[in-house]
């Protein structure tokens, strides 16, 4: 109470006529919002604990619950909005750095929504994907710049290692620790079934999941958690994480309280010890140091694994990507400023980095200007929300996309953005065994498969509409895109024309 009191953000509205006091909401809410008052013989609630994860709403058999935005507001102010004021109060009270999770929720332009896709009319036939083959398979990795022949003149067909994907979408890095064992199991199973890859994130690879190796990208981050020979050899590729879109330029911190049992063993960190990922890799202070790590990992795996270098989209991204392309990396992954996270300082999440659309367009063009686009593949992430975003990303120049938030939504995440509390009611961003078991691995993986299957159908429909029957012919095909409501400068960076041109 007093100066620091912040009125609850949400209002729990219970329809007493419908409520049967079955107490399911009480069991479902790990935050302890709902309590049964045995004296009054009815459910009561503590709204101050509610994060609006919608778990109780979804599981109330009587449809008696809804969560609404509270209308208790400060005096309206276009400059000092409510969140800003509340955050200021919190900091004045605590002296601490604000923490948030999931992607940047602020009102920045979403360029995907200002880009429109083409379709064929008359001069070029559209193609019906139900009748004709429509190919979505992609291979990621370095391609040679010149062919070679043997003495008989036959083509030498050896290629540097590649990742084969049935469609240009992968599940992006989410570590075991930041998400649950069951969440990882869902991602791994679905990736295998779909013929794509998921990504371990920086928390190592649980021993149960080595069987999904061919569909796994193993990550090496600045904390080097869980990295050893078998781990490097387990996956289809190795990703060096230099940065993350949600928090460019800083490291990570998994509190000791979460380093228990399996997480401790998988990360190879003693139980109860904080797992700290430093901001930089302490062996990489320049581009040539990155080259050394790339080649060390190649040597360690006998040059059988493509090496991905993942960076956050920052101002000078085109030059950075060009440097990475020349450092021996096979694939560059770029994470936009709207990318998700299990926990990040709020100010960094909301203010650092640039949109992936602009970063992708700039990088793709830069690599082409330097004639080295075929030496590397490009993966982009940092808010790919639908099959249309995938089509637009590929047409801007991406080889494939990473999806993180979209995959978690398929598993039940309702974007309450409270991952950092560890009390995820959907069993995703938590290590509490009681909560983890809520995420059914069979159901979860099937929902991921459904989502990707639906996207693949939609991708094929849109490709067919454009008269393109293979995703390769869409890559970098920017004439298939038009901008709407953009400035000349924005269009120039994206390398597309305005609608009507």
């Amino acid at each position, binding site marked *: 109470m007093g100066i620091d009191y912040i009125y609850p953000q949400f209002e729990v509205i219970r329809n007493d006529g419908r409520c049967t006091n079955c107490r399911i909401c009480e069991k479902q809410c790990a935050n302890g919002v709902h309590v049964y008052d045995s004296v009054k013989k009815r459910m009561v609630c503590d709204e101050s604990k509610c994060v609006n994860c919608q778990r109780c709403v979804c599981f109330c058999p009587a449809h008696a619950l809804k969560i609404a935005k509270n209308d208790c507001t400060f005096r309206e102010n276009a400059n000092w909005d409510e969140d800003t004021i509340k955050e200021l109060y919190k900091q004045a009270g605590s002296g601490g750095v604000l923490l948030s999770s999931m992607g940047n929720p602020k009102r920045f332009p979403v360029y995907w929504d200002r880009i429109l896709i083409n379709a*064929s009319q008359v*001069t*070029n*036939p559209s*193609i019906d994907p139900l009748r*004709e*083959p429509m*190919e979505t*398979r992609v*291979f990621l990795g370095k*391609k*040679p710049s*010149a*062919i070679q*022949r043997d003495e008989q003149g036959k*083509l030498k*067909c050896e*290629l540097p290692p*590649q990742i084969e994907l049935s469609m240009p979408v992968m599940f992006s890095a989410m570590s075991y620790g930041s998400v649950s064992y069951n969440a990882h199991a869902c991602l791994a199973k679905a990736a295998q079934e779909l013929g794509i890859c998921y990504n371990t994130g920086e928390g190592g690879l649980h021993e149960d999941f080595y069987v999904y190796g061919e569909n796994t990208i193993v990550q090496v981050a600045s904390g080097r958690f869980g990295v050893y020979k078998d781990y490097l050899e387990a996956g289809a590729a190795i990703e060096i994480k230099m940065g993350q879109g949600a928090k460019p330029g800083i490291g990570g911190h998994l509190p000791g309280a979460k380093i228990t049992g399996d997480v401790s063993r998988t990360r190879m960190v003693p139980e109860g010890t904080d797992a700290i990922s430093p901001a930089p890799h302490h062996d990489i202070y320049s581009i040539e140091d990155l080259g050394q790590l790339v080649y060390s990992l190649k040597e360690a795996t006998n040059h059988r694994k493509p090496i991905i270098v993942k960076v956050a989209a920052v101002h000078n991204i085109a030059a950075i990507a060009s440097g990475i392309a020349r450092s021996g990396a096979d694939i560059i992954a770029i994470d936009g400023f709207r990318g998700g996270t299990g926990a990040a300082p709020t100010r960094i999440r909301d203010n650092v980095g640039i949109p992936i659309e602009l970063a992708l367009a700039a990088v793709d063009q830069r690599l*082409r200007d330097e*004639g080295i*686009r*075929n030496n590397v593949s490009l993966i982009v992430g940092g808010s790919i929300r639908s099959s249309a975003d995938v089509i637009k990303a590929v047409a801007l*120049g991406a080889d494939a996309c990473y999806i993180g938030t979209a995959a978690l939504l398929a598993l039940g995440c309702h974007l309450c953005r409270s991952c950092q509390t560890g009390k995820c009611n959907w069993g995703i961003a938590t290590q509490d065994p009681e909560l983890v078991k809520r995420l059914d691995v069979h159901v979860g993986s099937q929902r991921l498969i459904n989502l990707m299957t639906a996207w693949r159908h939609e991708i094929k429909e849109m490709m067919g509409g*454009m*008269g*393109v*029957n*293979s995703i*390769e*012919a*869409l*890559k*970098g*095909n*920017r*004439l*298939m895109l038009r901008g709407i409501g953009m400035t000349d400068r924005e269009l120039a960076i994206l390398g597309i024309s305005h609608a009507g041109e």
Partner: protein
Amino acid sequence: MTGEKIIESMKPMHDRSNGLGGGFAAYGIYPEYKDFFALHMFLDDRAARKSCEALLRETMEIVHAERIPTRTTPAITDEPLIWRFFVSPLRSVLASMQLNEEECVARAVMTINTQMKGAYVFSGGKNMGVFKAVGFPEDVGYFYRLEEYEAYSWTAHGRYPTNTPGWWGGAHPFALLDYSIVHNGEISSYDANRRFIEMFGYKCTLQTDTEVITYIADYLLRKQGLSLEEMASVIAAPFWSTIARKDECEQKKLLYLRKVFSSLLVTGPFSIILGFDGGLMALNDRLKLRSMVVGEKDDKVFIASEEAAIRVMEPGVENIYAPAGGEPVIVRVKEGKF
């Protein structure tokens, strides 16, 4: 063969073009200059020709230059100055720039076409030439007096431009060095192909998809050294499922080509005929979204969008068939025949 026959063949194809572009390519027409590159050029005026000549002289010797003979006909108007230059790159220049003569000529052509106002090179191979204009193809043939040329291989094209205005340079065939392309269709992969091929010194200036196919052919055949069959497996790559049915050796090769040159896959409807020194290659898109038929008679091979065009040239044509999508038809002149 003189140009007469092929002009005749274009008459029943009249409705397939709209008078905004017609053209021909002929191989073996300059035996007396066969060691020199024949640059055919459209020039806006005398000044453009003078500056063009000056540019050429920096890197090559011009052994002969003349106006290309034409006839006056009401069907063809507004013609620019049309010249041909027979040139040979200077050895000293080749040595100092570390180039072979083809690359030297290709670069000069790119420079003129992208940087010189009022000058456009539309043909530049040895012992071959392209003749094109705005008009119906049969009128273009009459205009250029093609019955006076003898060639071992001819291609022709009537245009129905959709994406770009009809202008002289925009008519087919498109040519670079001795490669020429006639193309029926509109490719949906255009910008993917263009942005890839421009990494290697080509500049697409005409906003037309046929131009990019010409550069792809030059890049794959001349710069990468692929065979015609291998090139066909890149631009009309077999489906992954088709590749999976091939024997192991073939599979390895097809997978390799498709992975390495994935950005040169051409989609959308096309039937193309690639002319080159010593032969022709015809190719359909892999779904066969455009018609194309092939026929034979004695030692001649005929390829056209419609059988009617072949029947005009050779009523007794035999072995008529329609090649499958992505199946290249390669015709080579018998050795020593030219």
